[in-house]
């Protein structure tokens, strides 16, 4: 359904729904410089989120939890957010909800005594326990229920009052947790799939899952939406990188569409042939990409050299920038196929050919095979360079 099809007069409320910023998140598998870039990207995406709110003339911005990766982030992570929030227009309320990663605890960033909290402008609302009821004009009302711990078995929507008879306002819920349909997360603030009906809501804004989701899938009831993380946090988050743009009509029908704000795309790839690796090298979309590359193949020495060169080209080194912006390379499966090594070494001096023969003999010993294979490849490479 195209939300733009609604006439302007039909729309009585516009807002932006975002969640799971995870400011301060670490990426320990990556190189330190790459980790810094991705951590910084989490701050940079804030501009695009609030920019989307400007463009869409949103009346309110809902931030549904896990805005920080921990409850007590370092100042380097909350200070940029604070500065960015201070630049937002005063007429647009922004609601910050503590999630299970950054629960509302006495010593958390959400505590009233915390410098982050104290620096927040008046139009930025933190959802304090037990619940925030925030009227949006006289036509809508927001009910926010925060996480006060990292795990819990209670449905946070249970605290939201049901719609009173005669209450015709647009009712929006704002919680953080996992809907019942996600297995294994029953202790992660489970949220009833029917909460939106049970509580008489017109829109339920949730955070936690990092991919965009419309719950339930048949879309027969008012929307329960996970906007997903605005910048992906890991591989496999297929529909991450968006915010939800929501428009509510006079008939209290909520129209939802996604807008991409991510700078980075995360991709996992496994290559088992040199042809695949060559193909990867020629791809033009490797910028702005975090690529986990698993290389699993045994190649003859000359092809292995080529594979090594391509990998260096992809990853970069001190002399050149890699074609992939962030490459998490697992090349332990890239090994030498020494079966034709002797033929490849025919041009080498006899003494080096003898060394090759000895190393091939060594390779035949099961406990020395890997070491010998590596030595063979090193020898092949050095000999080629030397000659």
């Amino acid at each position: 359904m195209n939300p733009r099809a609604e006439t302007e007069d039909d729309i009585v409320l516009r807002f932006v729904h975002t969640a799971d910023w995870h400011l301060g998140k670490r990426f320990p598998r990556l190189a330190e410089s790459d980790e810094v870039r991705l951590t910084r990207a989490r701050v940079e995406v804030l501009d695009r989120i609030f920019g989307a709110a400007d463009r869409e003339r949103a009346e309110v911005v809902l931030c549904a939890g896990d805005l920080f990766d921990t409850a007590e982030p370092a100042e380097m992570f909350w200070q940029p957010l604070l500065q960015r929030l201070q630049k937002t227009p005063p007429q647009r309320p922004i609601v910050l909800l503590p999630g299970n990663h950054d629960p509302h605890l006495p010593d958390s960033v959400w505590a009233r005594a915390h410098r982050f909290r104290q620096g927040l402008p008046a139009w930025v609302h933190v959802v304090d326990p037990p619940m925030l009821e925030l009227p949006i004009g006289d036509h809508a009302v927001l009910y926010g229920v925060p996480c006060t711990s990292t795990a819990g078995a209670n449905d946070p929507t249970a605290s939201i009052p049901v719609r009173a008879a005669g209450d015709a306002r647009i009712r929006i819920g704002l919680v953080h947790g996992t809907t019942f349909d996600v297995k294994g997360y029953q202790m992660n603030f489970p949220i009833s799939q029917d909460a939106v009906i049970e509580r008489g809501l017109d829109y339920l804004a949730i955070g936690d899952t990092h991919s965009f989701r419309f719950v339930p899938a048949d879309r027969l009831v008012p929307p329960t939406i996970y906007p997903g993380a605005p910048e992906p946090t890991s591989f496999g988050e297929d529909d991450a990188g968006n915010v939800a743009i929501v428009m509510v009509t006079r008939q209290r029908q909520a129209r939802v569409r996604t807008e991409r704000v991510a700078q980075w795309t995360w991709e996992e790839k496994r290559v088992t042939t040199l042809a695949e690796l060559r193909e990867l090298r020629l791809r033009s979309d490797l910028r702005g990409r975090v690529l986990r590359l698993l290389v699993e193949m045994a190649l003859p020495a000359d092809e292995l050299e080529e594979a090594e060169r391509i990998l260096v080209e992809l990853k970069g080194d001190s002399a050149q920038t890699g074609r992939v912006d962030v490459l998490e390379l697992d090349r332990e499966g890239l090994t030498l196929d020494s079966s034709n090594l002797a033929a490849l070494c025919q041009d080498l001096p006899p003494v080096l050919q003898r060394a090759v023969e000895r190393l091939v003999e060594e390779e035949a010993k099961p406990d020395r095979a890997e070491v010998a294979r590596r030595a063979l490849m090193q020898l092949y490479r050095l000999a080629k360079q030397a000659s």
Partner: protein
Amino acid sequence: MRFSRLVVESVRGIASAEVTFGPGLNVLYGPNDLGKSTLAAALRAALLLPVHSSEGAGLVTWDRDEPARVELTLLDDEERIWRVCKTFGDGPRASAEWAYSKDGSSFATDAKGREVDGKLRALLRWGIPSPGGKGSPHGLPESFLAKVLLAEQTEVDDILARSLAADRDETGKLRLTSALSALAQDPTLKRVIDAAQEQVDRFYSANGKRRAGAKSPFKEAADQVARWQAELDALHTREADPRLTEDRVSTLREGRTTLVLAAAAAAEAVQVASERWQRAQARSVVQAELGKAEEALGAHDRLAQELAEAKKRLVALGEARAATEKALEEADASLAAGDATLAEAKDAATAAKSADHALQREREQAEHEKKLADLALEEQRGLAERTEKERLARAEQDLLRALATEKTVLAELETRTNEAGVAERLAVARAEGARRAEGVFAFGKWQEADAAEKKAAKLVGEASTIDEQAGEAEAALGSIGEARAVPTREQLAAVRALERKLLAAEAALGGGVEVRIRPRKAIGLSSTTDGKTADHGKVVDPVVLEADRKLELRIANVVDLEIEVGGADARKQAATLRARWEDEAAPVLAAAGVTTVQELDARILEGEQATEWRRGLTEKLRTLREQARQGAARAEELKRVAQLAPSREKALEGHDRRVLAAAFAEFGEQWEVPAQQRGDAAKKQVEAAKAAAAEAVRVRDLKALEAKQARAAVEALPPVAEPGRAARELAEIVQALAAIEPKRAALQEALRQTLAAAQEQLAVVEKTVAVAVAARESAHGKVLVCQKARDDARSEHDRSQGLVLERTSQVEKGDRPALQARVTQCREALTVLSEDVGTEAEVLVAEERLQRADRDLVSLTRELDQAEGALQRVGGAPLREELTRVTDALELAKRRSASIDLDAQAWQLLRDTLREVEKTEGTHLGRALAAPVTERLAELTGQRYGAVEIDPHLQTTGVGGFAKAAAAEVLEALSVGTKDQLATLLRLAIARHLKATLLLDDHLVHTDPARLEWFRRALRETATATQVVVLTCRPEDYLGEDEMPKEGETMRSLAAGSVQVVNLGRAIQRQTGRPG
């Protein structure tokens, strides 16, 4: 090692001589027969010749009885100063001394006798074994280095032909190997070893230990592992050992238990207070009931009293009736008496007066009774009003309670109705979802069936194509035919190795042969040159034939001449290898239908490609056939499915297909299982929603019933405005009284009238009395009046009697026992109801306490939630995610560390392997020297010659540069002078690398001036690196004119001491008349 000073006494023709050497070039010049060669011999003897050697005798001046003495001072490589002093002579006169000095002037003996040569040879390391041992040489020992460094003038050929292999001791070779190792290596090998060593040095220290410093790759990797391990341990600690938080949670939980108990106690207190309050209210109700019952009983009793009084009044009225009847009788009697007597009229008048008094009294009594009745009525009305007010108050309370109950029930009913509505809507939504899910599944099945026919057709088409491809593949396979049997790669390698060996063996045969046939007369000549046969016919002119390996000649059919090049061993080796070639390789080539190894290689490759192609085609054929079979089976299956399409389409009736298509599109290719699952889930949801809706409706209906009951209870209450029973009774009483009142008024009126009549009668009687007789008719009228009064009295009596009957009836109806029982029941109820009653204020206090306890409980529960949150904060999804991340990072760091270990081991293995092959096969000393010697020879000869070939044992084996000539031949063909020069270049190169003193005993005598000029520069250049001693009779060959010692000078030092010139004519004192 270099010479410092030589002192010679009585050696051959030299009586004495003393020469001091400089560290660089030493040009010792003098005319022929001066004793230059004797000095050279003295140097050799000092260094090499044992004093007891028979050759020592050759040094002694033959006609003198003096032993020959040689004293050489030298410096070793560490610049330590040594001196060897040898005296050659017969028997005991021969001696040797080895002495050490710190300052060059005073020496301390270090060894004597035979030990001296041992010390010397150990110092020199020239490949000469120590004297005295097995195999030790006698006389002047020889070795490669001794020859190279100290060669005599005539030994040029020996120098080039000398081989290290002939040395009896390894020291020379080791020294040379050590000195030349850098040059002896294959340059590629050297670079590879250097690079490998550089890598090994990154990982390991010089003593082979793993590096642990800041830049160590091991450390970097280990640091990463340690870092992530520590982090993981910390996370596990957070996960596994949250004791403090647990304690806090435990304390808070205990506190909550206490508060829960307190709240329960408060609730109980509220309950107790409420019960007491309710009991108080109940008692009040019962007491009110009792009051009412008692009042009713009292009213009943009063009615009974009234009845009694009414009965009494009835009696009175009866009496009054009787009195009226009596008065009538008396009036009759008075009338009769008036008729009779006036006196009696007076009596009658008196009697009438008396009656008047009685009536008056009766009237007063009636009025009194009326007053009493009014008072009783008033009292009863007051009582009734109070009772009514109390009843109204109770009714109001009851009504309010009932209304409150009804309101509560209605509110619940509304809530339940809403819930039921929500549940029903949800059920409807679920049902719609389930219907749609079913529709989507049916749509999928229909579409599957609909598409099946097309797919089947397509598959049939594809199967046809596959069949064609299979046919093509089969045809191609048939066209390949069976592969020709080709040798294996191993056989190729063996043939190639054999070919290399054969080529090497043939190369070792030497550089060929040239035969010049000069016929003295015409002869028939045929030849076979290296296997190529040629018939030269009759030849007259000289014929030159060349062959690389073998030349066969048939001359005039008379002589068959076979000429083979190379030494016997080499030829034997070559023949053996040729035989092996014929036995082993030739059949392989023949079998493959080729003649050369290259062709064989190509044939093998071709065979492999054909095999591979055949294998590929076979595989392709198999795959195609399998595809065709599967395609056919699939097509059959699809056709069966296609037949189901109409029936499946029916299932779609009632659905919007566009909606179904859109929903179906979400599933993608593998739609069936998820669609089925969604359908099942939707059905379950429908059932759950229906059950929830039914439950909600049931609850709503229950509430509705409760609401009806509450309404009925409200309606069942008496209207507040309706008079109560007491009022009704009062009204009835009042009504009854009102009914009686006219009668009473009539009675009173009757009494009044009676009284008036009596008074009138009295007046009449009195008048009659007064008038007597005339009033008899009036008296009669009076009788009538009396009669009427009597009738009225009778009537009144009757009415009173009716009242009595009515009251009696009322009393009887009042069911006093029941009223009494009610009173008793109420009293008993009061007895049953405990007197332990409370007030509403107490209830409010208890409720306030309960609210406080609830607030405390909520507050503490929140605190507990936070504490439990803190407890969960060390667990929960974030920690699990962090654990996963850190575990991954640790795993990666460990793998990297292991990989670095493997790399380090690989570098070590490579380095060791390279060194091993270098040790066994890599050192080629000839290669080390060939390059510089070749370079210098080319420079010297103006590029006339090519590469100088020197074998690994430093034997010079050839000189290149002539295409058609073998290097050995060129070497052999070199002029004497060029050979001298080549030998000198070799010696200079060796001396330079060994940093050993080189003795040149006029070795360049056959050298032209131009080349001498070149050598002069070369010697001076070499002398910058090592000591060179030149003995010459032509100093101008080595020195400029201005460099010669001046007249009277024995020695001159030039070029800052790097060139020292010694005029031997002045340094040597010759034996008188002896030749040098």
